[in-house]
C-alpha cells in the first residue's frame, strides 16, 4: 500500500508536468513550439525541389534573411532556426524527416550546442509539447531520460508561465515570422561580448555524421555554416576554438565560412540583443555572404 502511494505520487507529478509541458505554458517552450509549428508548415508549403533549408538555433532565426537569399539564389529558402535550448538533436530531428531529394540543408549550430550531449534544457519539454517525446534520434538511455524529463516542469517555467498568463509578459519571445520563417520583430539592447570555448563533443559528432548520411540517402546536400558571434577585441582563444571546430566539421561535410573573420566580430552594432542575434542590416549582409559561399561550394 505504501509503495503504491509513492508510485502514485510520482506518476501524478509526472502527469501534471506532461500536461503543463504539452500546453507549453512556459514562455520559452511556447516560443519554441509555436516557431516549430509555423516553420514546419512553411517548409511543407514549398513543394518544389531544390529548397534551401537553413537550420539552427536562435542565432539562425535572428541571423539570416531567407527572402534575400531566395532572390540571390533563385531557389526557395526557408529559415527553420528555433530556440537553442531545444538542443542539437531536436534541431536536427525536427527537419530530418522533411528533407527531400535535391534539397540543400545548411546547419548553423551555435557552438555551445556542439559541445553538449545533444540535449538542451528545453529539449525534453519541447519534445512533449510537439507530441514527439524523446525527439532527435538518440540512444535508448537518453530517450528514456528525455521522456522522463518531459514530465518535469521547473520553477523558472512556473515563474515565466505566471508572468505570461497573468501579465502577458513575453520578453524577446515574439513568434511573429514572415512567409520564409524570418523574424519580423527586433529587440535592441546593449550586448556584451561573448567567447567561444567549445569543442565538438563525441555525441554531437556522431549525430552530425548520422544526419549527413540521412541527408545523402535522400539525394540532398548538407553544409555547415558558422554562427556570427560578438567577441572581445583580440580574442585569440575564441579563434583557436573556432578553427578546431571547423576542422572537425569539415570531416563530416563542407563548412561555409568567412576565412578572414571566422564569424567572430568585435563590433557590437552588428548584434541586436544577444552576442548571437544579428540586427536587420547585418542579417542582409550575412545572407549575401552565405549565398556567395554556397555558390562557391556547389559550383
Amino acid at each position, binding site marked *: 500500500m505504501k509503495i503504491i502511494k509513492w508510485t502514485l505520487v510520482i506518476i501524478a507529478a509526472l502527469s501534471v508536468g506532461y500536461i503543463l509541458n504539452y500546453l507549453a505554458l512556459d514562455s520559452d517552450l511556447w516560443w519554441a513550439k509555436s516557431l516549430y509549428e509555423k516553420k514546419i508548415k512553411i517548409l511543407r508549403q514549398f513543394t518544389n525541389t531544390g529548397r534551401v533549408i537553413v537550420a539552427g538555433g536562435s542565432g539562425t532565426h535572428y541571423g539570416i534573411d531567407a527572402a534575400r537569399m531566395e532572390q540571390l539564389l533563385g531557389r526557395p529558402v526557408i529559415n527553420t532556426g528555433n530556440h537553442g535550448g531545444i538542443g542539437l538533436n531536436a534541431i536536427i530531428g525536427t527537419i530530418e524527416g522533411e528533407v527531400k531529394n535535391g534539397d540543400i540543408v545548411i546547419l548553423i549550430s551555435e557552438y555551445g550546442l556542439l559541445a553538449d550531449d545533444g540535449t538542451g534544457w528545453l529539449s525534453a519539454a519541447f519534445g512533449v509539447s510537439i507530441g514527439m517525446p524523446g525527439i532527435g534520434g538518440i540512444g535508448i538511455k537518453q530517450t528514456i531520460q528525455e521522456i522522463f524529463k518531459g514530465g518535469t516542469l521547473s520553477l523558472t517555467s512556473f515563474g515565466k508561465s505566471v*508572468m505570461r498568463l497573468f501579465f502577458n509578459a513575453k*520578453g524577446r519571445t515574439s513568434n511573429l515570422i514572415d512567409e520564409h520563417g524570418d523574424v519580423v520583430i527586433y529587440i535592441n539592447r546593449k550586448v556584451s561580448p561573448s567567447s567561444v570555448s567549445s569543442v565538438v563533443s563525441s555525441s554531437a559528432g556522431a549525430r552530425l555524421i548520422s544526419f549527413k548520411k540521412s541527408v545523402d540517402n535522400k539525394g540532398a546536400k548538407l553544409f555547415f555554416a558558422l554562427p556570427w558571434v560578438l567577441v572581445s577585441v583580440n580574442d585569440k582563444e575564441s579563434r583557436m576554438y573556432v578553427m578546431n571546430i571547423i576542422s572537425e566539421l569539415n570531416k563530416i561535410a563542407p563548412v561555409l565560412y568567412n576565412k578572414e573573420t571566422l564569424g567572430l566580430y568585435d563590433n557590437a552594432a552588428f548584434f541586436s540583443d544577444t552576442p548571437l542575434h544579428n540586427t536587420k542590416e547585418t542579417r542582409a549582409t550575412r545572407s549575401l555572404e552565405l549565398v556567395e559561399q554556397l555558390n562557391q561550394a556547389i559550383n
Partner: protein
Amino acid sequence: MNFATFTFWWFLIVVGVPIIAIKFVMLKINLWRDQYDRFALLIFSLLLLCLTTSYGFAVFLFDVSINFLLIRIMQRYEKNKKPIAIGIVTFNILFLIYFKYILFFNDVIWSVINNHTVVFANSNALPVGISFYTFQIIAIMADIYKSKQLDKVNLIDYFNSLVFFPKLAAGPIEKWPEISSQLKNFRLKFSQENIDNGMRWLALGCFMKFVLADNLSAYINTNEVKNVWVVLSSTYLFGFKLYFDFAGYSFIAVGLGKILNINLTINFLSPYLVSNIQEFWRRWHVTLMNWFRDYIYIPLGGSKTKYVLLNILLIFLISGAWHGVGWNYLIWGLYHGLMMLLYLYLRKKITLLKPAGWFITFNVVMFGWLFFMTPNISNIFSKLFIIFNPCSYSLPLISVAIEKYSLAELLVLVVIITMIIAVMLMEYLSAINRRKIFYGKLINGNIPYVLMFLSFLLPARSFTRFVYFNF
C-alpha cells in the same frame, strides 16, 4: 555518487534489478545464500564508482587495499600496534595532501619563487570522495585500535563500509562498530516499511537539493564586489544553498540507506535554528565534527588540557583546510575558531534570551560563508570593505541589483524564499517537540508526498553539482 545525474538512477535500476533477480535464483538453488547480499552490494557500489570515474576508482582501490593490509598487520602485531597506527595515519594524511593540496602548495611556492602563478594540473583531478573515505579509514583504524575486540576485519565488510554507494562521495563518516555490525548482517530486503521510511528521507533530500538549492544558484553572485546589496544577498543565499545542497545530499543518502535497511547517521540537525555557535557545530556536518572531536580533540587532551583554547582553534583550522584548497577556507576556519573562543569566553559573563542568541548566531554563521564562497583574497577584502563602509549602502544600488532579473525571475525568488521560510518553520516545530525528532514534521504524515511531488514539478532547469563533491 552524484544523485543529481540521471546516470545514477539509471544505473540503480539497470544493474540493481538483475542483482536482485540473481539473489532469488541463488535462494532457489540454495547457493551462497549467506554471502551473496554483501558481495552483491560491494560489486554494485564498485561498479557504480568505476562508471562514475575510472581514475577515482583506481585511486580508491589502491588506497583502500593498502590500508586494509596495514590494518590487518596492526591487528596481527598487537604489541606494536601504536607505531603501526601512527604509520597508517601518516600514510593517509600524506595521501590526502598529495591529491588535495599538492597543487595549492605548488601554486604558493611557485608564486613566491617566480612571482607568478603556476598551475600544473587540473584541480578537477580530485578523486571522488577522497576527503571522506580517508577520514573514514582513519576512523576505522582508530576504532579497531581502541577496541579490545580481536576479530579480524572482514574484507567485504571493510570495503562495503568505505564504498557503500549512498555515502562514498560526501559521507556521512561512520563509526566502525556501528557500520560494520549493520553490514555484517546485510540482507537485500525491500520491505514496505524500509521503502516507505527511505522514501520519506529521499523526498526531503530531493526537495532540498533539486528545488531549493539548485533554484537558489541563479541568484548567487560570488564575484560581485561593488554592490553591497548583491554581496550581502549572495552571502545569505549561499548559506541557505550550501545547507540545502549538503543536507539534501545527506538525506538522500539516509533515504537510500534506509531502503536497503542500513541506518546512516543524519549529518544535519536543523543547524540554522541554534542559539549559539557551539550548538551550531554540534548540528552542522555532525559526523565530521564528531570525527574531529573523537580523533583529534580528545586525543589532544579534550577540555582537560591547558591548551584547550589552542586546540579548539587548531580543530577549526584543520576543518577549514579539509573543506577546500585555498586561503579562504583557512580564513573561514579561523573565523569560526575565533567565534567559538569568543562564545566560550562570553557565555560566562552574558546570558542572552534564546531569540537574541539565535539572531546573533544566524548572522555570525551567514557572515562566515562570505569567506567560504570567495576564493579570491582580494575579493574578500573588497567585500569586507564595502560591508563595513556605511557609504556603500546606497538605495539606488538596490534597483541596480534587482534590474538584472526579469519579473518572472523575481517571482521565482519570492517563491523560493517562501518555501525556505516554510521549511525552516517546520524544522523549528520539529525541534521544539519534546521528543526532539529533527525534521519530524517534514518526514512524517503526508508532507513527504508533497515534497516528492514538488521535487518532480519544480526543480531547477539544470542540476548543479553537489557543493561538497569539491571537497
